[in-house]
């Protein structure tokens, strides 16, 4: 498929789904950091766990913004030349989002509260978009657009 169609789709999905998720997930991660900073309600390993989880989430959100901006600006060629650090950050974000899914499912089934499923909005939608980015980077599906002129 033509790279330009992927660009359009990614711009629209990023606006409708990506940015709200970044806002919600970023708020959650910053709240986590603030709870760690306060330190009153945590015991034992919870400090380290929450610190790592929140930092991984923030790094993942920033990496996603970076890589999707790169794709919209430079296309697949830009993704192929992107630094490894951005992809490592995205992988950290994937781990954090999987943690959110695990926590949401755990609380839903343990406490029988259907409303905790709303936590699935705090990051996991970006898993799909991160998968799209990685797919564009490593597979040969997207052809570069024909040369102008």
């Amino acid at each position: 498929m033509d790279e330009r169609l992927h660009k359009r789709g990614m711009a629209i999905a990023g606006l409708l789904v990506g940015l709200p998720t970044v806002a919600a997930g970023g708020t959650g991660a910053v709240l986590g950091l603030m709870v760690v900073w306060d330190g009153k309600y945590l015991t034992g390993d919870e400090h380290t766990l929450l610190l790592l989880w929140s930092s991984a989430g923030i790094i993942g959100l920033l990496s996603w913004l970076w890589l999707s901006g790169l794709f919209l600006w430079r296309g697949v060629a830009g993704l192929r030349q992107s630094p490894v650090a951005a992809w490592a950050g995205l992988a950290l974000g994937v781990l954090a989002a999987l943690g959110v899914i695990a926590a949401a499912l755990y609380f839903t089934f343990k406490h029988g509260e259907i409303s905790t499923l709303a936590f699935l909005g705090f990051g996991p939608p970006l898993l799909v978009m991160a998968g799209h980015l990685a797919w564009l980077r490593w597979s040969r599906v997207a052809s570069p657009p024909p040369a102008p002129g």
Partner: protein
Amino acid sequence: MDERRLKYLYAVLAVAFGLPSLAVGGVAATMLLLTGLGQFGHGTLAAVTVMPLWGLAGIAGCLAWLWLSAGYLLQGRAGLQVHRLWWWMLLAGGLAAVPPLGLALWWSITVHAEGIALLLLGPSMLVPAAVLVWIKRRA
């Protein structure tokens, strides 16, 4: 006008007039569609036909506007060379936005100036949509 400057102007118009209507009008159109569908079986004939169709037209307009705007902003005028169906969807959205436009004008003139806020239900998106049509026509 310079091609690049026209694109910047369009981006500003899309953010100022398009995005508010996309958020408010998109939600309103979805609710209209769902309410209309929920009345099947016990609503009046007008309710089960007009409401879902109106909602569908609004949603189609939002999708077409997103697709065409992303195309124009990313690829310039070449991005507007799309299937004719997208333009018909944009027209459907434009028609769906006319009743709130009339309501906003009538309300703000006869009742209270705050009625002008109804423009956010979709009519304000007519501004960037008209610019898109104008750019396409000029070619």
